[in-house]
C-alpha cells in the first residue's frame, strides 16, 4: 500500500533538550601528570593527546614554539628522522603536533593493537629530540616557502593583519609572524625551550577511543616516571591589549580579483557570563548557512562565495571576527551590507521563526560536535585550557533553550556597536 505523503508541511520533529556527554575517567601518573580517559567507539582505534605548556606565549619569540613542536619528529638522540617516519608509516599511524598560544599538543592516532610498539617511540620523541642541524634547516626552509606562498593570498594577508589591529603588535595575540623571524632562531633556543616546557609540570594526557585494558600500565611505564625532571616554565602573562586607534586598514594587493575582509573587535573569553548568549547572537549574524550575513551578502546580493562570523576565545581574551572574500569592485557594498546586518540586530527583534530555527540548529550542532570519542576529546582539551568542563556545554544547552528576543537585542546593543569594530581589507 502506498502512503501518500503530505509534502506541503514537514513531518513532526523532536527538539533536543539535552546532550549526552561521554564519561571522562581521570587518574594521575606517579609523577603527577593527569590522565583523562574517554572510552567509546565501535573501532579498536586510539587517539592520545599529550599537552605541554609549550605555546607561543611561553616561547615569547615568534616561530620558536611551533618549530620545537614540529622538530620533535625529525630525530631523537637515538633515532633518525627517517627511522621515525618509517616506523610510523609502517604501523599506519599518525603523529602530529599543533602549537597554540598557551600550549602544544602532540597527537597520536593508531590502531589500538600497535600501542605497545608505538608508545616507546612517542616517549623518545617527546623526551629526547636531537634538533639536528640539517633537519632544522630543512624544516625552516620548507616553512619559509609555505609562509611566502601564503603571503600571496588576500585571505592570509587580512587574517595576519587583523590580530595586530585588535590586540596591538606587542601583545602576544597580536604578534604576527614576519619573514625575518625565519632567520632568527638558534639551536640553543630550541634545546632550552624544550627542556623547560616539555616536562610533567603543567603537562596533561587525554586518551580517547578504545585504548584497551593495558593503557594505564603503558602510560605509567613511558610517561609516569619521577626521573623525568620537571621544568621551570613560566606562564608568561599576556598583559593588556593595545588596539590601534585607526579603525579601517587597507592593504593593497596588485592584480587581486577579490578583496578579503576581516571585520571585528576584541572580546572576552568563555569565562565571561555573556559569552554563551553571545554565541547565539553570533550564530544569527553569521554562524551558519542560513545566517543573516550569508543571506544578505551571498544569497541576495551574490557578492561572495561565503561569509562567516566567529567568536574566538583565548586563555586571556578573545575576539569577534567576520570574514569573507568578496568581489573586488564591490567591497564597499559588502562592508556596508555587513554593518547593516549588525545594526539591524540592535534595532529589530529577531522574528520568532528565525529564533526557533537558530536554537534548534545550535542544539543539533552541539550534538554533532559531541559525537564520538575523538571529537569529544578535542572539546575536552579546549575546555581544560580554560579550567572548564562539560558543564559549560550543559549550561549552553540551557541558555540556548531559554534566551528570548529582548536579551538578544540587549546584547546586540552592548556588543555590536559598529564604532567598536575594526575593518581590515586586503585586495585591490
Amino acid at each position, binding site marked *: 500500500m502506498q502512503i501518500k505523503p503530505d509534502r506541503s508541511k*514537514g513531518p513532526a*520533529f523532536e527538539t533536543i533538550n539535552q546532550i549526552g556527554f561521554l564519561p571522562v575517567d581521570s587518574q594521575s601518573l606517579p609523577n603527577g601528570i593527569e590522565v583523562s580517559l574517554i572510552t567509546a567507539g*565501535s*573501532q579498536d582505534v586510539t587517539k592520545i593527546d599529550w599537552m605541554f605548556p609549550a605555546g607561543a606565549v611561553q616561547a615569547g619569540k615568534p616561530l620558536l614554539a611551533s618549530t620545537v613542536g614540529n622538530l620533535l619528529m625529525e630525530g631523537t638522540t637515538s633515532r633518525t628522522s627517517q627511522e621515525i617516519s618509517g616506523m610510523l*608509516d609502517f604501523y599506519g599511524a599518525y603523529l602530529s603536533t599543533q602549537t597554540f598560544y598557551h600550549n602544544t599538543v602532540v597527537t597520536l592516532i593508531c590502531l589500538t593493537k600497535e600501542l605497545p610498539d608505538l608508545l616507546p617511540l612517542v616517549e623518545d620523541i617527546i623526551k629526547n629530540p636531537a634538533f639536528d642541524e640539517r633537519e632544522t634547516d630543512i624544516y625552516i626552509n620548507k616553512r619559509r616557502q609555505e609562509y611566502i606562498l601564503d603571503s600571496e593570498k588576500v585571505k592570509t594577508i587580512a587574517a595576519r593583519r587583523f590580530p595586530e589591529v585588535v590586540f596591538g603588535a606587542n601583545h602576544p595575540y597580536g604578534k604576527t609572524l614576519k619573514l625575518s623571524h625565519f632567520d632568527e632562531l638558534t639551536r640553543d633556543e630550541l634545546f632550552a625551550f624544550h627542556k623547560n616546557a616539555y616536562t610533567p609540570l603543567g603537562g596533561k594526557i587525554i586518551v580517547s577511543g578504545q585504548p584497551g585494558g593495558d593503557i594505564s600500565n603503558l602510560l605509567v611505564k613511558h610517561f609516569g616516571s619521577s626521573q623525568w625532571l620537571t621544568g621551570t616554565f613560566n606562564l608568561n602573562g599576556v598583559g593588556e591589549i593595545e588596539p590601534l586607534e585607526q579603525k579601517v586598514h587597507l592593504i593593497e594587493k596588485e592584480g587581486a580579483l577579490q578583496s578579503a575582509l576581516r571585520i571585528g573587535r576584541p572580546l572576552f573569553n568563555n569565562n565571561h557570563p555573556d559569552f554563551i548568549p553571545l554565541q547565539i547572537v553570533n550564530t544569527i549574524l553569521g554562524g551558519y*548557512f*542560513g545566517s543573516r550575513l550569508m543571506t544578505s551578502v551571498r544569497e541576495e546580493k551574490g557578492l561572495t562565495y561565503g561569509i562567516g562570523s566567529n567568536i574566538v576565545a583565548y586563555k586571556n581574551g578573545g575576539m569577534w571576527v567576520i570574514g569573507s572574500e568578496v568581489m573586488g569592485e564591490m567591497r564597499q557594498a559588502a562592508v556596508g551590507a555587513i554593518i547593516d546586518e549588525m545594526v539591524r540586530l540592535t534595532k529589530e527583534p529577531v522574528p520568532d521563526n528565525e529564533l526557533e530555527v537558530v536554537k534548534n540548529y545550535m542544539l*543539533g550542532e552541539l550534538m554533532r560536535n559531541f*559525537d564520538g570519542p575523538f571529537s569529544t576529546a578535542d572539546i575536552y582539551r579546549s575546555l581544560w585550557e580554560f579550567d572548564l568542563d562539560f558543564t559549560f556545554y550543559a549550561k549552553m544547552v540551557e541558555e540556548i533553550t531559554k534566551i528570548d528576543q529582548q536579551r538578544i537585542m540587549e546584547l546586540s546593543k552592548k556588543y555590536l556597536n559598529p564604532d567598536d569594530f575594526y575593518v581590515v581589507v586586503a585586495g585591490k
Partner: protein
Amino acid sequence: MIEIYKHQLANGLKIVVHPDITTPLVAVNLLYDVGARDEAPDKTGFAHLFEHLMFGGSVNVPSYDEPLQRVGGENNAWTSNDFTNYYVTLPAANIETAFWLESDRMLELNFTDKNLEVQRKVVIEEFKQRYLNQPYGDIPLLTRPMAYKQHPYQWPTIGKDISHIENATMDDVKNFFYRHYAPNNAVLAVSGNVQPDRVFRLAEKWFGDIPRRDVPVRNIPRELPQQEARFLEVERDVPAHLLNIHFHIGARRDDDFYINDLLSDILSNGPSSRLIQSLIKDKQLFSDVNAYISGDMDPGLFTVTGRLMPGKNMKDAEDAVWNELHSITSTMVDDRELQKVKNKIESNLVFAEISFLNKAMNMAQYELMGDAENINREIEHYRAVTAEQIQATAGSVFRKENSSTLHYLAEKA
C-alpha cells in the same frame, strides 16, 4: 566491516543502510550519477552550477535549508567529474525531515530567474576565489586540456570558462534537471542510529511516487591513447616554480586501480615515502611534493607534482623526479616497503569507519559503482597486489609518451 542492508524501489531508486547505534545522529546521503563529464563542451560547469540551484527551494518547499536547520540538521554537497553528492546529518529522531526535503527536490525544483541569477554570481565568485585569485589556482584549467583531447575530463568541475556560467539559461537548467535528476539515476545511503526497515518504509513513502525519468544513455567519447609527450610552460606571478606531470592510467573499476594507488603511496604517502625522502630531504629540490591518482570512473590520471625550492632549476628538479620514477620501474620494491603501504591502507580503512557520515558517503559511491558490499572487500584487493605488478605497472605508466608536463614558472624567480 560494515553491515549493509539494501532495497530498491519500483521507480529504480537504490537504497543502502548501515545501522550504527553508537551515535545519536543519522546521515542521509543522496548521490546522483551525474557530473562534469556529462556536460556539453559549450556548456561546462553545469553540474556544479546545478548543485547550487538545488538549494533554492523545491516545488512544495520554498526553502531547503531552513526546515532542516529547524530540526537540528546540517547539510552540504559536492560535485566531481563523475558525481553530484548531497548529504545531511541530523538527530536520528528527526530523520523523516531529510526524506521530505530530499524527495521534494528530486520531484521538482522551484525554478526561478532570481535564484539562477544569484547562484550564477555566487559560482563566478567561487571560480575567482578558487581558480583565479589563488596562486597556482589555474593549474587544472591548464593541465586537463593537455592530458585529455577527446574526453570531457578536459575541463574541471567549475567549468572551462566563466562565460559558460554567465550564459546559462533557464532552459538549459530545466533540461539538465529532467535528464539527470531521477530516482533511477541515484543512490540513497543512510547510516546512523536507525533500523533498515524504517529507512525502507520512509523511502517508499517519500520517494515512491516520484516517476522514473528518461535518463539518456551515456555516450562519452573515449580518450585515444596518447602517442607523444606533451608539454606546456607558463609564467605567473607566484613565489616559486611548480612542476606538474600527468600520466594516463585506468578507470576506478579497472584492476590497475589498486596497483596505481599503492604505487602513488610508495612515492608520496607519509613522511617516509620516496619522493619526500629523496626530493625534499636529501636533494632539497622541492619544498613540497605529491603523487596521487584521480580514481575517476572513466580512465583517469596519475599526477606527480611539486613546488621547487628557491634557486633550484626546473631541469634538475624534473630530472630528479624522473629518476625516482625510473628507479621504481627498474628495481622491484622490497617486501617491507610494500607491506608498509598496505598497512597504511588497512589502518586508513579502519579510521574511515569511525564517521557515520563517511560510511554513508562511501556506501553510496560503492553502490553506484556496482555493489555497496564491495567496501568490505576493498582490503583484499590491496593485499593481493604484488611487487611484480607494481614494477610492471610503473613501467607502463611512467613513459614520456604517456606524460603531459606543465612547467609553471615564477616570473620573479
